[in-house]
């Protein structure tokens, strides 16, 4: 059964169709990649899936067998759906620890998924899983490096014990070693049975992780399928990858 089911989802801003008729399914524990040129509606898609800051114009989102269109925003994570942002978003004046703790306290809602673990144990476990140095937890989020802020964002989502995570360009503006670490971290998260929907421009990340790949163009679905097939698709090469990108994709 699909964990996350997107049905004919559309978002219009006036005459602009930011997302148009997008449908796909993500199974439990799957890594689902989304690619496309800038402005193709990838982040908007995440926004309308969660309904924050705006909801879809039409279409439906099902999560864990339940329609979540129109559900109160703060309840989304209670159901087990978390997201990260393209920009390293954190509550800057709070310490890294406080950032993660907020998710731990408010995130799971009524779910009794945590067993007997204390708040501190849960925060530290989340930090450990994303390989965020424990010594950095006492620092203010604003004092962390870009990579650490990305790790913090993942830990804050992870601590809510989600069933699925929507990751918006987790590898952007990172160095090569950091990207390699990010891939490892996402694999570790996924190994805990958490489904991942991954928006990414960094092709090696996308191709080494995704089991299914969707390419968006002008808000519409250009191609959906196995990653190897998708990157060889003529339309995908023309609209997004370009000839050189396609060669890189082959290499990856």
């Amino acid at each position, binding site marked *: 059964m699909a964990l996350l089911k997107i049905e004919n989802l559309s978002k219009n801003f006036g005459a602009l169709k930011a997302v148009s008729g997008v449908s796909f399914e993500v199974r439990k524990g799957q890594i689902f990649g989304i690619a496309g040129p800038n402005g193709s509606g990838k982040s908007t898609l995440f926004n309308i899936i969660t309904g924050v800051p705006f909801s879809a114009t039409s279409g439906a989102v099902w999560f864990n067998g339940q329609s979540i269109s129109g559900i109160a925003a703060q309840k989304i994570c209670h159901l087990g759906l978390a997201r990260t942002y393209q920009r390293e978003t954190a509550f800057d004046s709070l310490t890294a620890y406080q950032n993660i*703790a907020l*998710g731990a306290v408010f995130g*799971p809602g009524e779910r009794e998924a945590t067993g007997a673990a204390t708040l501190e144990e849960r925060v530290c476990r989340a930090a450990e899983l994303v390989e965020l140095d424990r010594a950095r937890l006492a620092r203010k989020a604003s004092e962390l490096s870009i990579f650490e802020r990305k790790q913090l964002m993942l830990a804050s989502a992870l601590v809510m014990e989600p069933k699925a995570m929507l990751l918006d360009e987790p590898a952007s503006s990172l160095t090569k070693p950091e990207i390699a670490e990010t891939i490892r971290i996402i694999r570790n998260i996924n190994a805990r049975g958490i489904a991942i929907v991954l928006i990414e421009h960094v092709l090696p990340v996308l191709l080494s992780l995704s089991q299914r790949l969707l390419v968006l163009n002008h808000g519409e679905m250009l191609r959906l399928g196995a990653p190897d097939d998708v990157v060889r698709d003529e339309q995908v090469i023309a609209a997004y990858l370009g000839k050189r990108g396609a060669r890189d994709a082959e290499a990856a």
Partner: protein
Amino acid sequence: MTAETVLYILVSGVVLGSLYALMAVGLALVWTTLGIFNFAHGMFITLGAYFAWTVADGNGLGWGLAAGIAFSVAALAALGCLAEAVLVRPFLKRDNLVLVAVITTLAAATFLENATLLSRGGRSKQLAPLAEGNISMFGIGLSAHEAAIVVIAPLILYSVWLFLQRTRTGSALRAIAQNQEAALLAGIPVARLYALSFALAASLAGLVGIFLGGIKFMSPSMGTDPMVKALVVVIFGGIASISGPIRAAYVIGLLEAVCIYSIGIYWTQAALFVVMIAVLMIRPTGLFGGQRA
């Protein structure tokens, strides 16, 4: 200028600063969490004094000042929740919320001011002071009431600071102020915390009303002038942190005391605005703004 004069100016500056700080913190709290300016804040001050008077004074229920303060603070908290539910919540989804909130809170302020005038009359009233008598310190006389304000205000401010820094709810409030979207997706009950920040701000304003009511005569419009000062303080100090307005409040209080002594009360307000404009030209994020804390 004698040493006594300097001391006198200092003390009256600190008294003013204490009151401004209590007001400004509430104003800043609502401003940062909801992103709106609450023009009814001045009426919370007025009502704080009138509620306390109604319960405490012999012409009202006559239950004494302690009961009056307790009732007033509780009533203001409830009123704060109500104000949020009626004046802000119905318009949260609108793009022009900031503008709508200006109108709804101004309307509420006008309504409440005239309701107070109608129900309590225009005749000036005065609340009993927190403490009777005078104390003399370093050769200057000071009313015990003002001395109590100088001691109590920082304690209250410190408790608010502790609440914001050390508790989960406080962290959640700060989180909302910084990124509402991310706060929502972290499961923080944003709407409930909006009500809480309004309630907290209203209670603090109510206390200011009670303190003021023991210094000056009460009138239905007694909150207006302090609210304008609090606005100056908040802009002057920067709203990025809770400590910015507090520090600015004491700076403004002292400045005002110096101005009143040197150029007279008539020009004081103008001088404050000149200083505020000058500060903003050099530091647009406010004197203590620029970094979030």
